[in-house]
């Protein structure tokens, strides 16, 4: 199971990094999204993989580590904020320049 999650993290990182290195804004945003998934999973995995042990206090239950979950929850929301910001920046750049290239020159 650990191997599967690690492979998934590695795969998402590789695809994310490759996409981030593209020259257009939209693939860049997608790449960043993929990398966010990978990093979130990585952070989450630092609390180890436990099944049927949600951190909800009940009698006689055992719990997985809640702290990485709290961190990842904020990371997901911040990731959304960042994606939204980048999307708006990309649109603005498109409006101000000739195309959606990341190094786009200003409109003549």
């Amino acid at each position, binding site marked *: *199971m*650990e*191997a*599967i*999650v*690690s492979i998934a993290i*590695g*795969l*998402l*990182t*590789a*695809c994310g*990094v*490759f*996409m981030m*290195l*593209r*020259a*257009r804004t*939209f*693939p860049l*945003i*997608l790449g960043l*999204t*993929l990398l966010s*998934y*990978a990093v979130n*999973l*990585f952070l*989450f995995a630092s*609390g180890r*993989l436990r*099944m049927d042990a*949600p*951190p*909800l*206090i009940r009698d006689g239950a055992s*719990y997985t580590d*809640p*702290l990485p*979950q*709290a961190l*990842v*929850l904020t990371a*997901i*929301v911040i*990731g*959304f*904020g*960042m*994606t*939204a910001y980048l999307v*708006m*920046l*990309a*649109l*603005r750049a498109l*409006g101000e320049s000739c195309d*959606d290239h990341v*190094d786009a020159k200003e409109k003549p």
Partner: protein
Amino acid sequence: MQTALPALVALAFCAAPLPLLMQRYGRGYAALASAMVMASCLALLAPLVMPVMDGTTLLTSFAWLPEWGLTLSLRLDGLGLMFSLLILGIGLLVTLYAYYYLHGHDKLGRFYTLLLLFMAAMLGVVLSENLLLLVVFWELTSLASFLLISYKQESYEARLAGRIALAVTGGGGLALFAGVMLLGHIAGSYELSVVLAAGEQIRVHALYEVMLILVLLGVFTKSAQFPFHFWLPQAMAAPTPVSAYLHSATMVKAGVFLLARLHPALAGSELWFWLVSGTGALTLVYAAYLAFYRYDFKGLLAYSTISHLGLITLLFGLDTPLSVVAAVFHIINHAIFKASLFMAAGIVDHECGTRDMRRVNGLFKFMPITATLAIVAAGSMAGVPLLNGFLSKEMFFAEAVGHPVFDEMSWLLPAFATLAGILAVAYSSRFIHDVFFNGDPVNLPRKPHEPPRWMRAPVEVLVAMCLLVGIFPQWSIAPILHAAAGAVLQQPLPEFHLAVWHGFNAPFMMSLVALAGGIALYAMRHRLYALYDRLPSIHASIVFERGYEYMVAAARSLVAWMDNGSLQRYLALFIAFVLALGGWSWWTASAAVLPVVTQAPDAASLIALGMLAVAATGVVRLHHHRLIAVVLTSVIGLIVALTFVRFSAPDLALTQLSVEVVTIVLLLLALYYLPPTSPAEDGMPRLVRDALLALAAGIGLGAAAYAMLTSPFDTLSGYYLAQSVPGGGGSNVVNVILVDFRGFDTLGEITVLAMVGLAAHVLLDQLVLKQPMRDVDGRAWASERHPLFLQMLMRPLLPLALMVSVYIFLRGHNLPGGGFVAGLVTGVALILQYLASGIGFASARLPQRLPLFLAAGLACASGVGVAAWAFGFPFLTTTHGHIALPLIGNIELASAMVFDLGVYLVVVSVVLMVLAELGKLSNNNSLAQQAPAVPLALRERGNGGEGTLAGATPFSGKAL
């Protein structure tokens, strides 16, 4: 008494801008201000003179950064007093001189302010008790010197000279800084009193050699010792008053001052002897040799200054008590005769308009008084009896004869000293004979005559002192010399007697040989010049300049390579750097821990991994078709959410799911404006490079994850699990951590989100983008803008969705849910109305002032924090309790819920602000297309108006 020293330094610094302020009343006032400041400093110093002469050392200290060993502590002893008197006395004379020397149209404010700034810094150097403080003042003198050398800013030569001087002395200052830090480390304190008493301990320390070399680098660069001497002749580009003051009398003496100051702490080792005396001896002769060949008489004086600094350095290096006395004596003598020589040279330059000795000849008949003064001063430089230079030169010869180190080759040092003496006489003769005699002037720009009365006065004062000291040394200079030398040696002075006549002994014979030899050398100058012209010449300053230019070019090409304007390259470099860092620590890490127990994979996980692999590689493979890439990305998001469900993280799954919905809507909206496909423009090398980087990153993070997952587990979450119910009043530990235990983090996070919301407004307001009329396959948009079916389905869905979000919000403290998820669900429900019915319909029914809600949310969240203060608790302390309501019964309420409400409000407002601004783009667009001339104000009003104006809006065109 205690406050006089700090007052002196503070006055010097604070009053430095005074000439700049006074220059508007005329240049005379600027000069007067400068003179007043110097005179006031002298007046402050006056009452301290007698106690210091009696051998007292005055110390004052204020704490500055005591934990770093940096204190504002000052010290006045004999050495400091001698230097302070030189700095202030010569400063006053230079002030008077510069008033006449500089052009009448120069308002002088800048000049005198820089001069005062230098004076203040130099006083700081000689009065510092703390070594770090000394380094600070030291660098300030370099800076002031740089500004004064390049005072004629319009001249390239002056700017270049200033830059070279700054690079050399500033660089040496850095070495000195490092050396002083080591010295402080070795001695255990930066206070001079401690350091000077710790000489034994310092000399045996393992770091002594390194420290000494660093300190000497600072000394040698400042005092222009070989091979760092080349900046000083260049610095002659400065106005002559500056040369007289900084580059002969005071600043270049800072290096030898430090040799004197640190003598008890550093001297007394083999290394000191060889380094200091070797460098000094080499400089002494080499610079004297070069001085003889100058055509520019100011250049001659510059090289002679270097040579005399070499002599002083050599005397400190010889390291006998009497040689130290001679060194201190020569510091005074050189300052006096060289300052007067520079001023006389400045007068000649000023009156003739050139400094070339092939043209400036026979001036004695034009300016006899100035000529006489200059001849006396030059005689002192040559070491002619009855002048002050003779006395210290005699002491040097005496030390050379009697020095114990060269016992087998005892003739070597005296012979060397005599050679130096011969050269000094030769270049002094050249200065006297070429300038004032030797025929008639050749083709001078103007006819020379005596300078104004008061321009000559400073020279007269200094030359009088040369004679006074030279004839009555015991009466005039002995007291201050005793005080200064005593402060340097920190022990009882050796017996010495200052007198003109010591009898026919070896030093006197050497003086005679030097005089005769020097004159003989000058007599056969023409043959020597011819010989010199045939020798290859190496100019250290040219070598330095080449090196400098090479470094600038190398830096430029490096910057051009790294900073070529391509963001792709920056990112690739950044990722490569991170990978290199990661790879390095991977490589250097200790042996791996053996894997601990792992869980067996099951079919569902394998299937999920397979789907993830297909989707992720699909995104990369098909990313040119952007819509497909977005769909595949959403698949990945869902699998991630399922992963969270699987591994006991229901909160994360809920959040991921709702964020996924909002993100996909956002991406689709953006895609409406952005080109639907990416061109295939990357060449194969770049694709390979990126693929390699991506592969390395993937393998790296995957391997790190595997290493982490299989290593032993230890967590600090026990506290949170134990305290969640009793301390936080909720059984959903994740939510309690978010809104309670680590509420401050969350507060920061929603603030960031709020900024995204505001950014939406800033970035997208009034932006006009081209609207595509067809989709990626060339089909027109659907004719029905708002499908009735979708509209009718979405409207009843809204209250249901809102109810769900309320439910999720309320249960969040105890069960999966909470403000984040509830906010996202509300946001999605409202977006659905936009999608189904168009922006006009939705905008009219939704609150217009979303930023207000944003503010309310932040106020809620931080209000809870502030409220805790009112009860005397730290920020963001929460409380909880039970409330019994009729009919409903006991409800557990926590103040953290108000915090969560703030989170909820912020999330809803941000989601709506971002998406609504994106939706409004199409309105901006159609309005701009219809009436490009409409003023912005009108267009803005149109934004909130009816969406029916719009053509195809993204909400209607792209059905999800």
